[in-house]
Structures are given as C-alpha cells and as structure tokens.
C-alpha cells in the first residue's frame, strides 16, 4: 500500500519539488493560490454571479441614462430662456405625434426598417447558405472575407463611398454621360438610403443566419430529397423552418439597427429622408429642445422594444436557442 501512495503523491508532497515544474505551471499555480485567498472555495457557487456584475453595471448605467431622458421628455421647452420648464407636461409627446413632420419621420423609419429587413434577409440567406454549404474551402473563405471587408471600413466611409459612385458627378453618372444621357439624381432620396442601409446590414444578416444554417445537417436536406422533394420543396418545408432561429435573430437585429440608424439617412438622404435618430439629433443640437429630443428617444426605445416583444412572442424565445430541445 505504501508503494501505491508514493506513486500518486499528494499536492503538498509534490510542492517540495515544484522547482522542477515548467515556469508556466508554477505561474498558474501561484495565480490559483492567490485566487483562492481572494475568492475562497466556499464562494465558488457564486462565481457565475460575480462574472455577471460588470455586464449588469453597464446595463444599469444605460438604465440611469434612460431614466434621465425619460425625465427630460416630460418637461416643455421654455422659449423665453431656452431651458426646460420646471412643470411636468406631455407637450413634447403631443408635438411628436401631432406634428406632420415627426409623424412622417416615424412612419418612414418603421417602413424603411421593414423594407431593409426584408430585402437584406432575401439577399443574406442565399449568401449564408452558399457560404456554409460550399464544398471548396476557397469558396467559403472568399465569401467570408468579402463579407468582412466592409466591416473594416465603417459606416460613414461607406456612405461616402456611395456618394462617390452615385453622386451628381459620380462614377455612375459619368458612365451614363459617356453614352450621351443626362445625369440622374441618384442620391439624396429614399432609394439611396435603403440601398446604403441594405449594404450596411447584409453582413449582420449573413453572420446571424450562418450558424442557423450550419446547424441544419446536410443529411436532413439529402433525406428530404431522397424522400421525394425537389430542392425548392426541401427549401420551403425543411431549410426555412429549421433556419427560423437565424431568421428571427437576424430580423430583430437588422430591424432595430435600421430603426435607430443615423449616418445613412444623414449622408445619403441629405436631409430629405430623416429617420427618428436624425430628428432626435436635431432636437438636441439644432433646436436645443432636449425635451422634444428626449420624447422622440423614448418613442424610439418603445417602438424597438415593442417590435422585439412582438417577434419573440410570435416566434418564441426558444428560437434563440435559450431553451433546450430545439434541435
């Protein structure tokens, strides 16, 4: 028996020869000993909560900001001194909902968000599908890199890129001019904003759809085919329903990102196609009416939240993979 004990050794016994251990082991052992002093073993069950604290703090700060903005929104601007009045009122909300301008902006934002979501998903699905299913590794890499490149450029620069291509003196109009046509007005209008937004959202759509498509076993598609389904029917009856988590996730992200977008309507819309965010900016910084800006912000937050709640109550949060058994 003593021989057996010698062979196994206890951590204490082996600590004597710890100088023989590689440096990395010794550093990690020391770190563990220090961690044990700060966070003793008896607290281990609460480690998860400890790790949650930083994230919760961040969210909490956001909530504080939201409460303040909510507070601002309830005070009307005093035009005599350009400060918010002391008294509470719903005037700002009344203005936001009754003014034809803000109503147009609101409806335009929602409509554009729906449009961009639908178009982007339509374009992103085949892209994601091909990226996941391509047989050649080169094809997959090419698709992935072309997807990520725009990410490195940033939204503002990309919007300016569109100006260069679509502008009055832009690339496209130059080509058209070469063939003797008069230049077209391709920017500072609604389609330009939609185009810019779709291009901006496409990578988000693809990246959120790809894991969902990866989760669909290739054999499931082959099984459907061998059971008598043409690929169209396989797509409708098998791929689409199984990709639901990705469709829900990417719709929510694209819709909310579009709804709150500022740069694309600002640069490609040129003031003709303002979204809510542009109106909020104007409220705070152009009109100096922080009350109205805050009210619009609250409306935006409510709209976004309502959309997410509606989508999840229809599709179920299970589609995000929170609950088990989705497979």
């Amino acid at each position, binding site marked *: 028996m003593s021989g057996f004990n010698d062979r196994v050794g206890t951590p204490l016994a082996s600590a004597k020869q710890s100088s023989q251990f590689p440096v990395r082991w010794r550093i990690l052992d020391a770190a563990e000993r220090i961690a044990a002093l700060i966070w003793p073993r008896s607290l281990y069950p609460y480690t998860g909560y400890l790790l949650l604290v930083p994230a919760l703090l961040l969210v909490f700060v956001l909530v504080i900001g939201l409460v303040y903005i909510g507070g601002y929104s309830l005070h009307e601007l005093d035009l005599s001194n350009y400060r918010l009045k002391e008294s509470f009122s719903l005037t700002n909300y009344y203005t936001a909902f009754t003014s034809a301008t803000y109503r147009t902006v609101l409806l335009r934002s929602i409509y554009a968000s729906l449009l961009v979501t639908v178009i982007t998903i339509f374009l992103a699905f085949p892209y994601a599908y091909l990226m996941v299913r391509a047989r050649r590794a080169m094809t997959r890499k090419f698709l992935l890199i072309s997807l990520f490149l725009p990410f490195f450029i940033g939204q503002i620069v990309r919007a300016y890129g569109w100006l260069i291509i679509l502008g009055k003196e832009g690339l496209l109009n130059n080509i058209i001019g070469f063939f003797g046509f008069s230049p077209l007005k391709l920017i500072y209008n609604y389609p330009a904003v939609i185009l810019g937004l779709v291009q901006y959202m496409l990578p988000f759509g693809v990246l959120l759809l790809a894991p969902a498509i990866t989760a669909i076993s290739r054999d*499931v598609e*082959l099984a459907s085919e061998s*059971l*008598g389904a043409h690929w169209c029917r396989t797509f409708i009856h098998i791929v689409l329903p199984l990709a639901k988590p990705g469709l829900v996730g990417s719709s929510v992200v694209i819709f909310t990102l579009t709804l709150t977008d500022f740069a694309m309507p600002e640069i490609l819309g040129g003031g003709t196609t303002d979204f809510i965010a542009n109106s909020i900016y104007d409220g705070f910084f152009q009109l100096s009416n922080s009350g109205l800006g805050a009210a619009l912000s609250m409306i935006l937050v409510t709209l976004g939240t309502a959309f997410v709640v509606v989508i999840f109550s229809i599709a179920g949060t299970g589609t995000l993979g929170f609950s088990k058994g989705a497979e």
Partner: protein
Amino acid sequence: MKNISPVVELIDVSKRFGKITAVGNVNFSLSKGAVLTILGPSGCGKTTLLRMIAGFESPTTGKIRINGKPVQAVPPYRRSIGMVFQNLALFPHMTAGENIAYPLKMRRFPPQDIPELVERYLGIVRLTGMEDRRIHQLSGGQQQRVAIARALSFNPDLLLLDEPLSALDKKLREEMQLEFRRIQQKIGVTTINVTHDQREALVMSDEIIVMADGVIQQSADPVSLYRQPSNKFVASFIGLTSLMKGTVDQIEGTTVKFNVNTTSLWGQTSSKFHIGESVEGAIRAEQVRVHTEQTRPVGMDNVLDGVVEEQIFEGDRMVYQIRCPALDSAPIFVFDHDPAHNVLHRRGDRVVLSWNIRDLLVYPD
C-alpha cells in the same frame, strides 16, 4: 414470375475524388426482396457506393441500373429509394407522424390515403399511438423506428441503410438488428445495408459484400463468407483470426505444408502455390484447441507449444492470448467455450495448441 431482372445492378462502377479512388470497378446485382450488406472498415468506399445508388453522387465511370433502367440522369427525388441515414436525419420540427407522412405528401399520394398509411407504418415499426410525439421526445430506439417507417412508407423499390444502428448501444443495436430483420421480412423490401459491424452483417443479410480500399474483396452468403474467406483481408476482418507467415514446403492437392522458421504447419488452400512462395496462414480463435502438457495430443500435424500471455474473460467464454516461441509472429487467440471453466490457464502457464488441417487457411502473402 415474368420479371426476373435484378432490382439493382452495378456495372463497373468507379468513383474518383481528384486522385483518390473511393470506389473501383464495383460489380454486383441484387434480386427482389434480398438483403445485401456491404461490410468494410471505415473509409473503404462503402458509403460512397451507397450515396451513388441513392443519387447523391454520380459514378465517375460505370453504370447503375435500378429495375433495369439506367439512373444516371435521374435525380434522387425521382428515384424510388428509401434511405435511413447514419444520424437518422429526421426532421426535428415535425412530429413522428409528420415525418412519416412527408414522403407521401412529396410524392403526391392521394391526401385521403395518407393518414391510413402513416398509421399502418407506425404499426409495422411498433410505434402505434406515438404519432404526435416530437422527435426529441422519442428515445434513440424509437427514433430509429420512425426513420425506418419514413423510409418505407412510400413503398420504395429499394431501401438503403447507412449504418443507422452504429450510434446505438450494444444491447439496443442487437435488438434493432433482429427488429429490422422482422420488418424487412414482413414487407419484403429489397435492401442494401452498409456497416463496419461484422455481427450486424452476419445477422441481417442474405448476402455480404466485403469491401476494402474501394474494391470488393468477397461477395458471398454469410455462412460461406465466414467459413471460406477468399483472401487474407476477409479472413482477418471477420471473426477473431490469428495470422502466421511462412514459406511453402510441400503441396498435396489443396493441402499445403509451409514452414514458419523451423516449424512445419499443414493447412488448406484454394490458391495455386509453388514451392518456396511466401504465404500466410489464418486460423480462427474458435478452431484452436488448448491443452496442458499432460493432455498433449499425439499424432497430430499442427501442434504448438506456447505460453499464456493474457487471459480475457468475456462472460460467455474465455479468450486466451498465447505466445508461441516457434512462431515469432503475433500471438494466437483461442476461445475456450468450456462453460464450467474446469481447466483454467493462468497467465504464464505453459500450454499446447492444436488445430485441424482444414481449419488453417493458407493465403498468398
């Protein structure tokens, strides 16, 4: 019986991926109602072969005929083939019943017949009443049954099984092998099964094709395949077989004497040898008898001294791994089926091995 043409026929079928030959010149045909198992180690090309029959891959050269008609231009969804996949590939967003109804809907069966057919096939796989269960609510064995019912419900000409039982634990797997045999006999569907499990092949098939490196090694019924393996690979792949290398010394018809170092062994062969050719003898563990020095057999040709190297108890039998100094090759495996274990040989014991001439099969090296 007017229609005697085989259900499936493969003529010189090869499949190459780049420079790699996955399947090389495979020929076989299968008549109606038969169960064929393609047996081989992983990577031997058996799954590629199955996928070509299903239509997911097309052969590089050669022809595949189903019911006498070439199927090169026929896409999988137009072939009348039911397939059970290795991972089952059930549709997780549908119930058991919806899974079984899927091929019926896709193949445009009259809608009023579908519920009845689903009910019938649920009954055949003994899942009556489970129709509304979701796939993840079913056990592994029940999922197997749904997959089989789904592949059969549209009454295909051919059923393909791509190692569907490999993920199950041993007991359930053996149960499903018998269960499958029962369903197959009831329906009479022509079946091609692919597996690396020799027991499954022996239990389930009317005919077995052993494949290695993309090439058919032997094609025979289970009993002949086990009793008369046609080459060294088949002999060592099926059953527990010990191999010994030597050179031919004497030939008397189908009986061959070959020398391993200074020891002479007598064996049986179907090949033509010449004196001095290097050969390999193969003996199955159940054909070797183990004795002690006291019970040493006299007047027999194949008698070898050895030492017990390992003693493995498998419940229904004892397996001995015996090192014979005369053969400097791998140890020889022996089954001892004595249920009472009257004579136990312990590690390090000296023993004597013997076997019949007709049980030692000699192959070209």
